[in-house]
């Protein structure tokens, strides 16, 4: 059975750019272990020869309805919804930047991310 250690919680958090304190890491390790154990049931399902589900919009859709020969979930008689690649007027810069926490000379200002 899968369990997740505190250390693993810290590693996952680091990948996801979360920083957990020790108390949180302990709590999430305790909570995630039974959830993972529950999810492990999937590994017993026979999926030999079954392809992964496709996102509903990915053309071409199956020809015969919701689950056609490709098995993609996409209603019959519908097209993919992809439109022509035509440029539309963008948001004016000042409106696009209005909700940005820090702006400098019309740009999003971010903290330093390169070593000198």
């Amino acid at each position, binding site marked *: 059975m899968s369990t*997740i250690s505190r250390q693993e*919680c810290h590693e*996952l*958090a680091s*990948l*996801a*750019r*979360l*920083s*957990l304190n020790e108390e*949180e890491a302990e*709590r*999430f390790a305790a*909570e*995630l272990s*039974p*959830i*993972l154990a*529950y*999810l492990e*049931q*999937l*590994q017993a*399902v026979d*999926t030999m020869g*079954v*392809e*992964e*589900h496709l*996102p*509903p*919009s990915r053309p071409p859709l199956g020809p015969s*309805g*919701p*689950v056609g020969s490709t*098995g993609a*979930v*996409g*209603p*019959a*008689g*519908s*097209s*993919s*919804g*992809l*439109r022509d690649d035509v440029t539309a007027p963008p*948001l004016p810069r000042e*409106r*696009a930047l*209005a*909700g*940005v*926490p*820090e702006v400098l000379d019309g740009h*999003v200002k*971010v*903290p*330093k*991310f390169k070593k000198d």
Partner: protein
Amino acid sequence: MTPNRIIELSARAIARHVREGSLRATEVLEAFEARADATEPVLHAYLLRARDEARTAAEAIDGARAAGHPLGALAGVPIGLKDLFVIEGMHTRAGSRILEGWIPPYQGTHAARLLGAGAVITGKLAMDEFAMGSSNENTPYEPVRNPWDPRYVPGGSSGGSAAAVAAGSCAAALGSDTGGSIRQPASLCGVVGLKPSYGRVSRHGMIAFASSLDQAGPIARDVRDAAALLQVLAGPDPLDATCVDAPVPDYLASCDRGAAGLRVGVHREALASEGLDPEVAKAFEHALAVLQDAGATLVDVELPHAEHAIATYYVLCTAEAASNLARYDGLRYGARIARASLRETYEATREAGFSAEVKRRILLGTFVLRKDSYAAYYGQAQKVRRLIARDYARAFEGCDLIASPVSPVPGFAVGERSHDPLTMYLSDVFTIGANLAGLAAISIPAGLSAATSGRPALPIGVQLMAPALQEPTLLAAAAAHEDATDHHRLRPPDPPRSATASEPDPGAGGAS
């Protein structure tokens, strides 16, 4: 007309009165606002009440009528939107501190279409943070309470939407449904909740949780109001490539088609689970009898992979959430906790901005997507999802609809389950399949549970599911059930009971 009579009107009747001039939009708005003033101190359904914007919109409708302009299908109807719907210029947070202060610079498709039809937007309705939850307890704000008994949760994640409609603090509302988040709160609050087929309604301007599962839909007091809202919302949108380009039928007309000749599938095996409350089972069987009386026939269906739906769902939705929520980096919108480096800024912002359930799902999603667990978890879940979708396709070869309960229990008390995420996840058992397979589904009121010493009388919903884009069949059966019953006319206590009355027996909220 008195304010109390106005808030009893259907959304369709309000629009008709406003179009005909027998009610002013401002008068309608005042009636619903008075109701919200009375119920909000107990229910907390609204995260934001947009009084000024609503007043301006209602006055514009009245002005348009006075000037002889034609009015839309939802003229003057007060509608609340779940907080994850973007409304240009209106504070939108998806129930999260990480978006605190964000004012959308663009209009979402849902708000645009509702406003275009003459609706008056009353505000932003409370929700579980980023739509992750089944009780509205996953929130940094005040949790929403159930109008039938404020000691009980309203369900989630669209709990504010369902509670507001049930309490009459808006005439209808918009929710979103990723694994049951429209249908389950509709069931727990005794209103109608419609999850359209995946792609039927645009997702542009709906803050994403799990993009392959999320769908917007109406919560309303009766089936025809839900149909009227779907009529306005449905249809292709150049701003959402997953929104299908299929004709939009006349949904209101399909509500009058009746249930005669419809074959209703029942997955008996799922009903045998020990977690099913006897009151829910009883209400479900009664609803089946009502459909049979209306001319439907029952058939048994098999869904061999249904038992794996919850596991499949929680792998996929957490993976998609971990990916979607990567955008909350503290740089471009919302809150920023500034630190010396970029990485520390990300971590400090996300640490402060997300609450526990969101972090839990991001961690789980990160785990299932990680290189060494991808094949066993994410890849395998995508395969099982295909098997589940195939099961439904095969079942629908022998029936037009599939009926089931919505929630295994009538409701549960605030705090009863919040300590146990897995138990909370397991309560989504009946609703998740429709999202995994992209189906249309609806929760309709099916009566109240019997009050016992440990639990008050609480609403119970029944679910109908139809193949993708078969909303007309879904609505025909739902309306036929409603026309033969009075469950949708039941109203919660007015004024609402106090939330601080004697606490219910904590073990009495149902089996788990």
